[in-house]
């Protein structure tokens, strides 16, 4: 091979190598173009509203409708407001009580139905799931009748054991939020049950058989077999429970509207009160931003401690 041939070969080789490499790079770059629709969608429907809410939270309005720059005034007002702290307390109670209670009762129901029923399985599954698909308006009216101390169903039951309810659970400052939490648990436990039923049915039968042979039953079976194998369901329910807590609105709005005297206020009703009833869009936006920050913080904690794999891993649930 001459020197000229060698150069030709080298040039030819470089050309041969570079052309597909450039094409590959171009193709890789072109792949990013496919993200544009998703990014545009995110920008329009998520990014822009968030920025708009943040911007709006920096303004306030007079009772005569004139808008003025308030800077961080809405946030300062919020932090000084006892109602805001009451709302925060209520949201914490809501999440801390409803999520674990729904999971425990839902899990127990699922286990009982799957283990101890045969022909009536479908009936029980449906019956416990009915509240989930029932209109929240109907639920609110029914539970108002249950709680009514004068003629309510609860009072009728208490009368049988000689007790008289002389105050309204929904109308009392100390009990309103707990009365609502009970209704929420009743409404959504069927959903947890359904998730656990799906989880239980995904566990291979052999594992149960092997556990029984090894003598595991009751608490030991739950602690060392079921709970670890259902961790995906647990994490999903935790995630959905937190989202549900932050989105709580219709039940509270219909049953107490945040009262009495803000005792059952939740973020949804608090935002609605200022944004829609009072027309204070700036203050309502400031509350929304706080909720956003809170949601972001909770999401971060979930990702940090629970990871994200359970959301997409197959076979867990």
């Amino acid at each position: 091979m001459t020197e000229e041939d060698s150069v030709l070969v080298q040039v030819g080789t470089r050309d041969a190598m570079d052309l597909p490499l450039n094409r590959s790079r171009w193709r890789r770059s072109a792949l990013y173009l496919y993200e544009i629709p998703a990014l545009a969608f995110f920008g329009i429907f998520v990014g822009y509203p968030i920025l708009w809410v943040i911007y709006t939270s920096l303004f306030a309005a007079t009772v005569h409708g004139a808008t003025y720059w308030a800077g961080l005034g809405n946030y300062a007002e919020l932090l000084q407001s006892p109602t805001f702290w009451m709302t925060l307390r209520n949201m914490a109670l809501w999440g801390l009580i409803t999520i674990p209670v729904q999971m425990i009762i839902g899990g127990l129901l699922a286990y009982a139905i799957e283990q101890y029923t045969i022909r009536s399985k479908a009936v029980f599954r449906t019956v416990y799931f009915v509240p989930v698909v029932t209109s929240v308006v109907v639920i609110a009216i029914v539970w108002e009748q249950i709680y009514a101390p004068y003629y309510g169903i609860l009072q009728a039951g208490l009368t049988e054991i000689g007790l008289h309810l002389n105050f309204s659970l929904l109308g009392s400052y100390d009990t309103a939020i707990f009365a609502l939490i009970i209704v929420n648990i009743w409404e959504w436990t069927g959903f947890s049950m359904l998730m656990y039923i799906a989880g239980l049915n995904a566990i291979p039968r052999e594992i149960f058989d092997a556990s029984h042979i090894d003598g595991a039953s009751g608490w030991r079976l739950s602690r060392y077999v079921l709970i670890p194998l259902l961790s995906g369901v647990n994490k999903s329910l935790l995630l959905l429970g937190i989202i549900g807590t932050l989105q709580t609105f219709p039940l509270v709005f219909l049953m107490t509207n945040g009262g009495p005297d803000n005792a059952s206020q939740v973020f949804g009703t608090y935002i609605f009160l200022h944004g829609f009833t009072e027309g204070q869009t700036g203050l309502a936006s400031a509350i929304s931003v706080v909720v956003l920050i809170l949601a972001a913080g909770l999401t971060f904690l979930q990702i940090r401690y629970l990871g994200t794999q359970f959301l997409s891993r197959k076979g867990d649930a």
Partner: protein
Amino acid sequence: MNVAAKVLLTGAGSLALTSLAVGVSFAHQAPATHKKTVVTVWSWFIAGTMKQAIKQFERTHPNVVVKYSYYNYSPQFLTALKAAAASNSLPDIIGLQPGSLTQQYRPYLAPLNSLAAKTWGSHWESKIFPVDRAQMLMGNPPGNHNVYMLPQESQVICLWYNTQIFSKLHLAVPRTFTALVHDAHALSSHGYIPMYQGVAGAWQNENVYEMIADQIAPGLFHKAQQGQAAWTSPGLVKAMTVWKRLFTTGVFQAGALGDQAYPTGAQLFADGRVGMMALGSWWLQEAKYAPPIPPLVRGMKGFAPFSFPALTAHGHVSPPVGGIDVGDGLTKNGARNPAAWQFLASLVDGAGEQASLNALNDLPAFKGFAPTAAVSPHISKMYHAFIGQLSHAENQRFAYPPVQTAFDNAIGGVAAGKLTPMGALKQVQAATKKALGH
């Protein structure tokens, strides 16, 4: 191409041609409809009654089509308005309450003064009941005398009692607070709900308080919310103390704090399980509901209104309190549509209003109207008594939303025993001061 593909293709072609033909056919017939002017209306006003009003209007305006969207007041109507205002897509006419709601949407509303003067003459305002006139302007910035909403219907708030229960228990209509407590105890001891109060929904609390406050110091409630008097004035504190006594003396039902006036209270009242209830002139409409209706509300034969009893033995009962039940505003979009004003005018002073009154929906806002449909002598008597009261009624509405919210929280706090009357009203005073920038 196989046979199946040909059949599919032929079928698709035929369908397309048929669709085209149908489309062309409809398009050919359409011009008559397209020429009609459309008026869009959003409100929480009863759909059935509005339908009758629209029917009457369209009969005399054949080239106009009115499209009515009914919403529940809260949250549907409030959220729909907010979203539409933000996107500049408000309908031509929107239902409004005086004060708070009108002020929130004032930037989107057209002033109605010149249109009203053109339609009804320069003295058009004299045709409207005085309390409604004042409420139309409530909350306007100082110096702004524009009218942004017109009253469609008025109301007088009062107490109602079940005449049959009272007769059965040999009870007299209470004229004093002592008699009220006596009657309440008698009702309770016979298994009836004495006076049903839906404390969980704030409007009934406001109404009862206003009746009490206007008995103690007429007009002071209105002055306080305008910042012209202190909420901590002795008269208003005393009214709040009386409010609290309605709970402690057993006038209101046990558990009133968690109850709602509608639908629960109203149903119990109509079914004859409640002795008394704070409602208003609109209660008459129950008599016109489609059957089946409870026997007591047929012709209103089981009910009669009375004023809040005198707080002292020789005192006077509460004066009438009331004003605009529901009103309407013309949006800036609607101001560009002449038919929209025509329909709005008919709703407040025309065939539309007459249709509403015939359904006994409530009282008129313009003087000179009365139901022309057949009603019982009992209803007719009550109706005209309410009209008489409306002429000198005190204002029942709030001008400013933050003041109203503070008041609702305060009155709820007193009812729940969490706040003292003075402590509660101090909170309202602080909210009023902040809202008005004093």
